[in-house]
């Protein structure tokens, strides 16, 4: 090879190397920049209200009074409700797919569950408004009130729009996440585990309970946390179904408000800087919570998916 040709080759080599490096750096910068941008825009509100922003119950833009508690409450209640419903079902789906289904059925069902995750949030919202909410208002909520009305959670007027509707739609939306991640960690459980249990005469359920679930436990927890992260930040479907009233009421039938929903509804209407800043601060809190959840969840999933393989990977 002539000297000149060699030189151009190495220039080309370096060019690609540095181009890809530059892109990798830009991804890192993007994350830091987004965090800084949020913090910077939220600063007026952080400085004015301090900690009382989180504990304040009053949200009144006219009086320049901003307390985010009702939104935090709505987000937490709907997300926890969603977890309560989606975790057992998602786990059931993961066990069915990983431990029971014949391979043809597995391919089809796995694809369908993925489609559940692919449906856009706004379509869930639309369906929620015209199908789920009327059903809740006319059938489910009166039924719950009749049978469990002694519990404060199920008292009050059945409106349809409210915490229950928001929680249910979130459950549908995070179920694929929980099922997929739990399935992934179950697949990482070594087959020797299963075979050992079966060799001892365990039934299939006993094998799952003794050999699979304990092994995958922390990974499943990670999947649940990722689902929670998704639920906390989910915007459109909840905005369309939760009722959008900044009250803190015990009943699940009552309309409420969520953090993402108040941002979606009021952001373009924020007429002065402090108002906008308060909305960004709500976003910043969401950003912080989902970031922490993601870090923990990834660590848990990573530790399981990595752990059992051993040897060379």
């Amino acid at each position, binding site marked *: 090879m002539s000297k000149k040709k060699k030189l151009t080759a190495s220039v080309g080599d370096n060019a690609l190397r540095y181009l890809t490096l530059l*892109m990798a750096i830009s*991804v*890192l910068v993007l994350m830091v920049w987004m965090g800084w941008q*949020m913090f910077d825009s939220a600063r007026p509100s952080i400085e004015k209200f301090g900690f009382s922003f989180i504990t304040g119950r009053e949200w009144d833009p006219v009086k320049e009074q901003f307390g985010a508690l009702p939104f935090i409450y709505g987000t937490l209640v709907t997300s926890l409700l969603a977890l309560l419903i989606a975790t057992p079902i998602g786990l059931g789906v993961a066990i069915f797919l990983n431990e029971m289904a014949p391979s043809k059925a597995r391919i089809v069902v796995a*694809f369908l569950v993925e489609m559940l995750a692919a449906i856009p949030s706004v379509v869930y919202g639309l369906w929620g408004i015209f199908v789920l909410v009327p059903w809740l208002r006319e059938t489910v909520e009166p039924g719950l009130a009749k049978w469990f009305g002694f519990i404060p959670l199920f008292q009050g007027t059945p409106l349809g729009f409210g915490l229950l509707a928001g929680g249910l739609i979130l459950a549908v939306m995070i179920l694929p996440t929980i099922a997929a991640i739990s399935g992934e960690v179950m697949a990482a459980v070594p087959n020797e585990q299963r075979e050992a249990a079966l060799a001892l005469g365990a*039934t299939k359920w006993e094998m799952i309970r003794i050999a699979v679930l304990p092994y995958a436990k922390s990974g499943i927890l990670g999947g649940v946390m990722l689902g929670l992260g998704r639920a906390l930040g989910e915007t459109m479907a909840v905005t369309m179904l939760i009722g959008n009233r900044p009250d803190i009421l015990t009943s699940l039938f009552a309309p409420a408000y969520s953090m993402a929903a108040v*941002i979606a509804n009021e952001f373009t209407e924020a007429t002065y800087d402090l108002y906008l800043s308060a909305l960004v601060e709500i976003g910043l809190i*969401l950003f912080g919570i989902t970031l922490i959840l993601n*870090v923990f969840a990834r660590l848990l999933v990573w530790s399981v998916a990595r752990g059992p393989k051993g040897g060379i990977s």
Partner: protein
Amino acid sequence: MNDRVRKYRNRMMMGIFIVATLIALIPLFGVLGYVVKNGFSALNIEFFINLPKAMGATGGGMANAIVGTLIMVLIASVIGMPVGILTAIYLTEYDRTSWFSILVRFATDVLTGIPSIIVGIVIYTAVVLKIGHFSALAGGLALSIIMIPLIIRSTEEMLKLVSHSIREAGYALGISKRIIILRIILPTAAKGIITGAMLAVARVSGETAPLLFTALGNQYWARSLNEPIASLPVQIYQYATSPYKEWHQQAWAGSLVLISLVVILNLTARLAFRSRNN
């Protein structure tokens, strides 16, 4: 414990898992069923070629929203795909293990996990406020931020599947690294990378929250990329939450178009990838 009890319990648990799976699929068929049923009755050729009509009037279409979605997804792809694919190349071909690449992977995970409305806030404060108006460019930019981590993740997975012996064969022939990457590794992984890209496109084309205060929406045609622009998801949102029956019909029709797009992209991507693996 009695064997009969154990077997009975086993069968019961298996039944529970099957029931759980069936329950999980009810909402899927519920949503698809209603969207197809209500969407079809409202869908006609006008929907694809006309602008929206005034409040409460019958007829009209979402031509501008369909085009708007395509334009913004295109902008997002033009930015997001090169950044994502090149970053993935760096992470697999140049630097798999250093603290820097671990940090970049961490950033990718964080970007995947943050709520999409946060992206809207950031672009609003950083771009829309600075320029002074909403625009298609700002919307496309917001979508690209959602796209980048998805592309990085899928491309990285695909590049990792390329076997080391192929790389080594290249080195043994004295081919430069750049040529190995561009001519050998990328073509080998191309199908998988395209699959991932299609799934990412499917994902961002349904995004609403990041467009609410970047692209805003528009009842008419946007004359340039520097103007507010309509998009299918935002239009569906506005129509669904309006009090007019005619607009609800339009929202269902829009959802049918949007879901068809998403399902077709998903199916094509999956079938293409399956045929490769077989």
